[in-house]
């Protein structure tokens, strides 16, 4: 069982917050991560910014632009991670080209595959898992191999449109957790839990049976009730990103305290939902 899977197992309704590393700078990110963990985050998803974030909505796009404008790079990202000493596994979310491109010439020349240098460096820095939203399972063989070699989880996104043999394949390949996309579209905080979310939860229940990897639902989660509804329907946790990124954009230096509060709120929701789907009713 990987760090990430262990964190889910212990969480009893896990909270996986996302923030963009380097928004607005590396020191701030460290504070933010500590606050999230203090608030109850079980796993932290850290975005390594890429110039063409096609899977992200406007909130996270803007965070990425702020981070890039302030000089964030893959190298600095890994330094930041290595520096962070928190009690939660860190998962890196980024786009494939940065993974593909990482490393100096010599390292790359000696690598088994173009993606090995990044995975090696990430593992060394303390990254427990990777989420690459523009890498479908069909193109992931090289990265899967490198992740296996370095003990890094590779998280896949299951979309509302993912079905049949592709879904099967993904569940077989996924480690760490499965990121269940609650609705079509891109990341971004929404006011409600969409119908698609309920369908997704339904689908989780269906495929849950034969697979042990945890499932976390994301895309649009921003309120306690969302989180509760999601875990109540059988998910092992929730992913929430835009809501935290919005807080950072709004509160600047004061963000950590707000992040902690929001994390606590969502964590409570996730936990509460779990108790509804489990035999023993228990409230925080």
């Amino acid at each position, binding site marked *: 069982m990987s760090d990430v899977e262990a964190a889910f197992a212990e969480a009893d309704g896990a909270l996986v917050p996302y923030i963009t590393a380097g928004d607005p700078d590396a020191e701030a990110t460290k504070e933010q991560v500590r606050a999230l963990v203090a608030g109850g985050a079980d796993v932290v998803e850290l975005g390594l910014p890429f110039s063409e974030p096609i899977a992200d909505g406007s909130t996270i796009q803007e965070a990425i632009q702020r981070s890039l404008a302030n000089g964030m790079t893959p190298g600095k990202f890994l330094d930041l991670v290595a520096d962070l000493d928190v009690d939660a596994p860190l998962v890196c979310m980024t786009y494939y080209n940065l993974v593909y491109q990482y490393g100096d010439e010599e390292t790359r020349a000696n690598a088994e595959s*173009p993606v090995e240098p990044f995975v090696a460096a990430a593992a060394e820095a303390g990254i427990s898992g990777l989420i690459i939203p523009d*890498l479908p399972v069909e193109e992931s063989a090289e990265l899967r191999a490198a992740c296996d070699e370095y003990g890094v989880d590779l998280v896949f996104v299951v979309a509302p449109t*993912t079905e049949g043999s592709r879904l099967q394949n993904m569940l077989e390949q996924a480690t760490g957790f499965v990121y269940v996309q609650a609705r079509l579209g891109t990341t971004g905080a929404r006011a409600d839990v969409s119908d698609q979310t309920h369908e997704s939860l339904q689908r989780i229940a269906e495929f849950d049976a034969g697979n042990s990897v945890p499932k976390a639902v994301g895309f649009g989660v921003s309120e306690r009730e969302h989180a509760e509804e999601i875990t109540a329907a059988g998910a092992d946790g929730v992913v929430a990103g835009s809501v935290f990124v919005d807080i950072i954009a709004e509160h600047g230096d004061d963000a950590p305290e707000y992040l902690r509060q929001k994390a606590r709120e969502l964590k409570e929701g996730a936990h509460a939902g779990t108790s509804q789907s489990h035999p023993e009713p228990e409230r925080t």
Partner: protein
Amino acid sequence: MSTDSKFGDYGGQYVPEALMPAIEELGDAYERYVLENEDGFMDEFRERMADFGGRPTPLQYAEQLSARYDTDVYLKREDLVHGGAHKLNNALGQVLLAKYMGKERIIAETGAGQHGTATAMAASHLDMPCEIYMGTTDINRQRPNVFRMRLNDAQVNPVTTGRGTLKEAISETMRDWATNVEDTHYVIGSVVGPHPFPNMVRDFQAVISEEAREQIREKAGRLPDAVVSCAGGGSNTMGAFANFVQDEGVDLYAVEAGGSSLDVDEEEGVAPNSATLTTGTDGVLHGARTKILQDSDGQIVESHSISAGLDYAGVGPELSHLVEEDRVTPVNVGDDVALEAFHRLSQTEGIIPALESSHALGYLHEAHDELGDVVVVNVSGRGDKDLETVLEETDKRDLDVAPDMDLFEGVER
């Protein structure tokens, strides 16, 4: 994923999971309708390209250029296609395919507006609702094309992120697609993006070389020694090359935008060119593995060209592959040479070419000695859209070939 989603190492499908079913569905439709002509799709496509699009386009012997270069120069006149460029070949093909697939809504990205206008025309012709994403910077500098899209009843969605140009518009269109994938088809504007787009767009554009190959045999009695075509994303390029790839004696030149310099400014994240095949490195952009302009970290850099249509940091994966296989020779000419070639063709042949196409003509000018006796140059579009740019850029330089525009000075009223 079908086996030919790759061209050697290039190509593939690097898209958000939500889009995978859509591109699989599209791959399936591509095979049935385009490759197998199911329900007579290709027949209808060809008929509409004839009646609505104005195909076939001529292959014209260029008398003055031929005399000047002592080489038989033939111009493939894609500037005569409805809308003024080869772009309609693809746009009409895709909108028609979307109709066959039962889609109810068309979206597309556009930079300078050429692909957007072509898509809007095709959608209007086929009575399909259509929305075009365009960066706000581009909207402001390409107003006539925005008007044309609106006139053709397309909605134009301003994209405010980033610098408000093509890259951002593509990303935004992908987001729309990821949200509305069930009833919406995304008409990509070149041989880029995830499989099956590069194959499909090539096949729609291949009519260029299908016609040209037949025409040159009729006019010159033989195949050409070389085919020269500009390359941005590479759709007119692959269209002009496709039916000559198997003819080993025909050299294929993809002419990229050399911009103002071939160097990359890593510090600023800017390449003052769009010479992806020549100076780019392998990477993954907008759904495919291909050559791209990136810094050493893998961040995409801003490209540049005097011609908006070539100004793109990526290139079609099949072209990357054909270059790697030495079947296609990548070359480039800079802004100045393209501008001069624009004036040259306008003056000596009575054809005002697009600035994109002027790159191919600029390369012809520079390399005519080495191209052989019979050369086909693809004039991918007309230059009416470029008048403002050409005047401005000509004014900045001291070009011998440029006509003076003094006459306005005397006549202000």
